[in-house]
């Protein structure tokens, strides 16, 4: 019975349920970060430390920051200050903070030398992943780079503040392509 794994799984499921049921986008994002951290801990226990690191760096770091930026851009206005004041009340961040403390305690427990038994001993480390990634999976890496380039170009094009074609027909709700 791997208690650490099931505790992380419970935190992940609970935080994800909270994401789906929150009304405010920022509250949901807080819980989503906690959910991703819990899944990262599950990866670590499963013996995939590289995937756990990527989960935290890319998912909980980069992608969540994108979400936060968009929420910030959508909240321009004078009511943003009042909303900001509401966010600082303890009732909102106490839930995600408590879940994070649970995950932190679990991580510290795992890192104690005597208790490494909860982690899967057959660890697939970053070296093996890299060797396979740039060996048999080289084509997939190339395709992923094309996908990222397409995403970059698409996001840049869609995110521009004034597309020339749109300026000509300002006021219409048609979309120039």
């Amino acid at each position, binding site marked *: 019975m791997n208690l650490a794994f099931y505790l992380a799984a419970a935190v992940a499921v609970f935080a994800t349920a909270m994401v789906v049921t929150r009304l405010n986008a920022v509250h949901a994002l807080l819980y989503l970060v906690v959910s991703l951290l819990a899944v990262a801990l599950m990866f670590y226990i499963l013996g995939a430390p590289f995937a756990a690191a990527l989960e935290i760096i890319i998912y909980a770091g980069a992608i969540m920051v994108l979400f936060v930026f968009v929420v910030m851009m959508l909240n321009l206005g004078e009511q943003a200050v009042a909303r900001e004041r509401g966010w600082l009340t303890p009732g909102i961040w106490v839930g995600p903070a408590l879940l994070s403390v649970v995950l932190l305690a679990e991580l510290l427990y795992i890192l104690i030398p005597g208790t490494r038994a909860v982690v899967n001993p057959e660890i697939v480390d970053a070296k093996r992943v890299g060797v396979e990634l740039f060996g048999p*999976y080289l084509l997939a890496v190339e395709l*992923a780079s094309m996908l990222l380039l397409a995403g970059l170009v698409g996001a840049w094009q869609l995110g521009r503040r004034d597309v020339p074609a749109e300026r000509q027909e300002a006021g219409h709700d048609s979309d120039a392509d």
Partner: protein
Amino acid sequence: MTATLTDHALLIAVVLLVLGVSGVLVRRNLLFILMSLEIMLNAAGLAFVAAGARWAQADGQIMFILIITLAAAEVAIGLALALRIYRHFRTLDADALSGMRG
């Protein structure tokens, strides 16, 4: 790596995927729909990593890396579209966008 742990990891992945699907179906805010899509992609990644750990092979983590790449590209495009929709319609309600011309 015991088989039961793999089974339970896959079970958790299914639960997370169902939560994500229900989020996509229930929520009408575009931001929440995108978040639920992230949850679903994350659940798929968990399934791959669990299966890769079961056989002590690196393939699961490689698929997870590809999934994370897909998620990054998808969320960049999706959020750019959401911003554009918000500028155009002043709302993020998916139902308000259902009226298409043509």
